[in-house]
């Protein structure tokens, strides 16, 4: 476990010192959400109604941006080969990468989302739920995204391919995340049921993600 946390810490430190990835994701999220009212018109009522969906979709796309880097730089620098030979099983390497991606990308996005909710006239009562659902649902983004990043490690047009491979897998997270917020903004709807299902999806992706990503990495390293 020590090696696991060391790897997480290294990735976080790299993300912090290199900068870039997190800032780009945050900036992208901000601009996507800012574009929506421009396209839809400044009808506050309408914006309040569609805010949960837009916040979640924007967040998915923003988190998608930095997925490609999850293994890429390590592959180029040969770090991945070293990690594969090290004591940590590749499954845990993949898990550590996903955890680092979650902390460095999804958590900042979650913290930014209330501010964007404010811009979209989201009901104040929905804010705790918004942050809660994003935190509960976004590990699935990182762990399922890890599969996409591992699968496209050696392909030439990786960036576009990741979106095609991974976005369909995000649909349950998206649906339950939005359903939970909508339950608060526009009752009827069960907040508890959606939140539990959202967590179930996250837990399932925690189980599937590292195994599939490690299988993909092993095929390419071996």
């Amino acid at each position, binding site marked *: 476990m020590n090696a696991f946390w060391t790897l997480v810490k290294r990735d976080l430190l790299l993300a912090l010192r290199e900068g870039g990835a997190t800032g780009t994701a945050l900036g992208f999220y901000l601009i996507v959400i800012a574009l929506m009212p421009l396209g839809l018109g400044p009808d506050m009522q309408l914006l309040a109604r569609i805010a949960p969906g837009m916040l979640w979709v924007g967040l998915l796309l923003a988190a998608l941006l930095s997925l490609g880097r999850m293994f890429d730089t390590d592959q180029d620098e040969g770090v991945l080969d070293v990690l594969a030979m090290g004591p940590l099983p590749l499954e845990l390497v993949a898990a550590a990468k996903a955890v680092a991606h979650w902390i460095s990308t999804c958590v900042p996005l979650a913290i930014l989302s209330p501010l964007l909710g404010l811009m979209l006239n989201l009901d104040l009562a929905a804010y705790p739920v918004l942050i809660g659902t994003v935190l509960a649902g976004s590990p699935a983004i990182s762990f399922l995204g890890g599969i996409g990043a591992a699968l496209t490690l050696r392909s030439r047009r990786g960036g576009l391919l990741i979106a095609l491979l991974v976005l369909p897998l995000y*649909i349950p997270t998206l649906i339950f995340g939005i359903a939970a917020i909508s339950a608060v903004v526009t009752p009827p709807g069960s907040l508890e049921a959606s939140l539990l299902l959202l967590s179930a999806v996250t837990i399932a992706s925690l189980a599937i993600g590292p195994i599939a990503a490690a299988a993909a990495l092993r095929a390419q390293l071996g």
Partner: protein
Amino acid sequence: MQTLTQRLANPTRFMELSQWLLPWLSGLAALLLAYGLYLTFFVAPPDYQQGETVKIMFIHVPAAWLAMMGYMVIAVSSFGLLVFRHPLADVSAKAAAPIGAAFTLLALVTGALWGKPMWGAYWVWDARLTSVLILFFLYLGLMALRSALDEDPALAGKLTAVLGLVGVAVLPVIRFSVDWWNTLHQPASVLRVGGPAIHSSILVPLLVMAAGFTLMFFALHLKAMRNEILRRRVRSLTMAEVERAARLEARTAE
């Protein structure tokens, strides 16, 4: 004693068997489809509410079934490749993807054409439609991943198999999540507890069409697998020829 799958691991034996099987399969498929289409257009009565548009169902429902079966073929093949390293598994997975995608597209298009007179719109964001659309995206993802790695077919096969198995794990989740989200499409009415809810005048043509479609799927799949095996042989022959020519050139240069 070898099992059939073990015996088929030898591509030459597979080629022999499939060559014998293919005409029978395609012939039977053609016969069943012809009979099914005859039943559809001349025997099955128009629906009292839907009129003649109900005939779209005889194409739509089998196509939707095969869309799912195609993915199951890919899943089983992926499992066979990753776990047993069966040499034909990758060929089978590769061959099944475009066929499954075609049936999925067929189900979507016929559904849209049926939806316009019935629901008043070509496309509605209903659970069933959305989950089939996602299935279509998964097929596209499998094919895109394979084509992105075309310089290393063995690696492409393995990675596509990983994605195929992930898709199997995630598809039911997607299916259920979308189901709870919104629904307009009618629930299953043929395969359900308590027997089919369709009158036999419509059920019989439907089942004939479904059998014909299924046989057609396997005929196409077998043909595509044979083509893929031949393509691989041609590739390896070309490589061998190039190597031989290079060696010859090196010798004459000395």
